[in-house]
């Protein structure tokens, strides 16, 4: 399982610059200048799904019941995993828009309103991946499987209420490091405490 960022997909780059430009110009998000006044930006949920359809992280900012969550995951993995690598990173789904990007074996998906700025959200996805990469040191899917709780901590430092909270990678890294050291300290205290108790009750 390779590093997510090293074999990052740029959405099917052509070889020549002409092809790339063409690709860029013909992407619907470039052609369609969205003019309507926009609803509040809100990421309704974040999903990390592996190529095999295994869920690696879910975060729901809008209230979905357990049943709905299961249904959404099933529907979206079917929709997104089936898409070819050269297709657009945005899919319309039930009146919403799902922005997704594949990094190595993992699909990162965020669901937003129809009128939201999808390019902005696509880069929030990338921002998140870069921070994971920095924290784990060349992050791969295994890291996220065994340390899924870390992924939750990190996401909580990036998004709250479905809105971007921090755009500095450095700040996020600093805050996560501080949390880690707090946990470490508590652990040490606990073990020295249990030592003391052990000593005392000898």
């Amino acid at each position, binding site marked *: 399982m390779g590093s997510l960022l090293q074999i990052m997909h740029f*959405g099917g*780059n052509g070889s020549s610059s*002409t092809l790339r*430009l*063409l690709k860029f*110009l013909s992407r619907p998000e470039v*052609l*369609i*200048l*969205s*003019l*309507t*006044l*926009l*609803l*509040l*930006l*809100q990421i309704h949920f974040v999903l990390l799904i592996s190529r095999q359809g*295994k*869920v690696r992280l*879910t*975060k*729901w*900012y809008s209230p*979905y*019941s*357990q049943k709905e969550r299961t249904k959404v995951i099933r529907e979206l993995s079917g929709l997104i995993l089936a898409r070819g690598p050269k297709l657009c990173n945005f899919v319309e789904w*039930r*009146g919403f828009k799902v922005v997704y990007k594949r990094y190595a074996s993992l699909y990162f998906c965020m669901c937003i309103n129809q*009128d939201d*700025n999808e*390019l*902005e959200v*696509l*880069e929030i996805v*990338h921002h998140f991946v870069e921070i994971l990469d920095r924290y*784990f*040191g060349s992050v791969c899917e*295994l*890291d996220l*499987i*065994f*340390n*899924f*709780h870390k992924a*939750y*901590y990190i996401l*909580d430092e990036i998004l*709250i*209420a479905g*809105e971007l*909270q*921090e*755009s*500095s990678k450095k*700040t996020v890294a600093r*805050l996560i490091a501080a*949390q880690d050291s*707090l946990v470490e300290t*508590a652990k040490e205290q606990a073990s020295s405490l249990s030592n003391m108790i052990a000593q005392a009750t000898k």
Partner: protein
Amino acid sequence: MALSGMRGLSVFISDIRNCQNKEQERLRVDKELGNIRTRFKNEKGLTPYEKKKYVWKMLYIYMLGYDVDFGHMEAVSLISAPKYPEKQVGYIVTSSLLNENHDFLRLAINTVRNDIVGRNETFQCLALTLVGNIGGRDFAESLAPDVQKLLISSSCRPLVRKKAALCLLRLFRKNPDVVNIDGWSDRMAQLLDERDLGVLTSSMSLFVALVSNNHESYWSCLPKCVKTLERLARNQDIPQEYTYYGIPSPWLQVKTMRALQYFPTIEDPNTRRSLFEVLQRVLMGTDVVKNVNKNNASHAVLFEALALNDLTTNFLLQTLRLYREVCSRYVDVILQLIDKAGDFVSDDIWFRVVQFVTNNEDLQPYAALKAREYLDKPAIHETMVKVSAYLLGEYSHLLARRPGCSPKEIFSIIHEKLPTVSTSTIPILLSTYVKILMHSQPPEPELQNQIWAIFSKYESCIDAEIQQRAVEYFALSRKGAALMDILAEMPKFPERQDPLWKQSSLIKKAEDTEADTAEQSAIKLRAQQQSSNALVVTDQSPANGTPRVSQLSLVKMPSMSSEDHNTAEQGVTQANGTLSVVDPQPSSSSPGLLGDLLAIEGPPGVAVESEHNLVSGSEGASDALALAPVGEQTNTVQPIGDIAERFNTLCLKDSGVLYEDPYVQIGIKAEWRAHHGRLVLFLGNKNTAPLVSVQALILPPTHLRLELSLVPDTIPPRAQVQCPLEVVNIRPSRDVAVLDFSYRFGNNVVNVKLRLPAVLNKFLQPIPVSAEEFFPQWRSLSGPPLKLQEVVRGVRPMSLMEMSSLFNSFRLMVCPGLDPNANNLVASTTFYSESTRAMLCLVRVETDPADRSQLRMTVASGDPTLTFELKEFIKEQLVSIPTALRPLAPVPTPQAQPTTSPAAVSSDPGAMLAGLL
């Protein structure tokens, strides 16, 4: 770094990964769940570490898609653990497992509150994150003030404050009624001065929410937003860590522009200029670069900037230029592509170029020239021959004066290719020849003979298409001038086939603007006068008795310079034309409306110019109020007819009388198109004395944008004033706009609040759907919140036929035969608003022939709010409203009394609503 740091958890995850199939996985999960359940039952024996571990396992199992229906309590209880590691896990797992509707969350409110008001900032962060992510109404009620305090506290560090900002945003967004934001404009202005970009980003999100709710209170924040944008665009004082691929926080830029979009205009010229500079920088500085992230980020900003179009006309023109640049680049790129890799270019792509060039006149000479250049190459792909031949046939005459571009030269260079092409290309070449011939009228005999020779050669071609063309073109080209009509340039393709074109109402607006460049100054003037183009029509003889020639004339009310009086006016009307709204057709010039004058008795009409001085409406009215004797005028003016009934009628019709009393009659005529509406209010004075202190205010609900043109302060005797009112529907809602209308006649001050028939169904467009279209849609909208069902009781008794016609009357198209059950009714329509755009709505009503007073209704659409609002709307139309209690003669409340007098409340729901506003 592949282990979780909790051995038991890692082992469990490994076990799951080693499972060969789903069945094994299920067994392993069940075993683990059993284990956890047993351990939790015996809670006393659990160490905090173990509890933590099990809670994580639960989350992991939950993520795998298994139901975890126990242990929520344990997760929530960890929140109150004294130590950070347990507390952290409690918070995170709770906010991942539960949503705002879980009752368990209530148990945690006190602990969460203690953490928020406590002094430990890491605890504060955890608590704010939980509330920000899943906080519901209970949290808003008990925590909002504390969160507000943290946000503005000077002793809190940025890490707490940015979380507080987003936490507050959630509470406000979910429960705007609970979160008290009175006086927040000053605080918001302070927050926007924030230097820490993390806090500023979060605060800007909060600001967007506040401004979208009500921009009026936040004018003072507008310059701050522009300043922030300036700081970002110039990369001034932006720490390196806040740039993203060299772009100063693109997210903050987008957010700030989003906030600005809620302001209709910018008054201060300096602020306007600054914003213009920023936008220019964005526009000019955005280029397509190799790095995909940089590209995305810069275009995210660019598109947001484009949405800010209303703020300056110049900007619009630049947008147009950019657009054209993109267009010519598009043509360039496709031609290059055909040249380099013609085999891989499907027909669709070159058709697209043709379509594109046909629809963009500016591109035509350019495209023709490009095509001509490619033909000079020694060997070109057949697709290139096709597209070049087509383009040159249509547009080569636009190049006539250039060297190598005479009809003869064009013809011979294309004809050179003929031996190399296949039969599918020859028909295109024949068309090109005949077009060249047509454009070179009168034809050069030599060229004509050459082309005719080719046509006659192919008259006996074995390919039917070629043969037919050859025969027809030969015959046509002998007809001389008649040729011109038949072979004229192809018309533009319908817009809907052109994705680049169809979205851009902006571009059209820009084009309109540009087309009028010569008239720029006139337009500006017009834009300034927009607010005052009320039409005054009067049928009273002028004082000197000389009849005028025209029956009706347009009277421009003395125009105020909108620059000077804006502040004074804002409170009075919504009328201030934004400077950028350039309407090449002034709204008053619609002659159709004049035909619909309301009946006002009087001698044959003759127009006079209004002579009175237009004072600011507000001053006039307040004077009148001050002078009006309080006690005397109660109930002196009775309305004619039932106001509520008139409103109900107008909800289903587009013209009629909205209100009438002995002195005044207010008529209405409306036109609706997609999410736009145009109402004209006809204010008619029925008497021989003038109506003074006339004042019309629109109280808009949040989902409509309403702009009423200026209403004159005085309506001359027996005259009628027409006031256009522009309506834009932003999102689905059943709220109603209210017209607050008052005037003085003699000693009577009359004030009425009238609901305006700009209601939900006006933004519907009936659309027939077939069974093939209906059922897949119906099934794909599978349940709440997109599809809602309700049993409605207390339905007015009506037959199915009556119900059908009721539905049709409010623009829901009943589709007979779709539902096999004859007692059911299926209808469809399209709803238009800015947020939903065009949205298909489907409705099914199942009636019970045995009991007509109840039915089951299902409404579905792609937008949850729309579904709900439409369902409620239909319900309102179906259930009977008790009328017995209504007083016989509803009374417009005299100005001297508070508008919420009981009489008014019971007489008209509109008045009640207005009272609440």
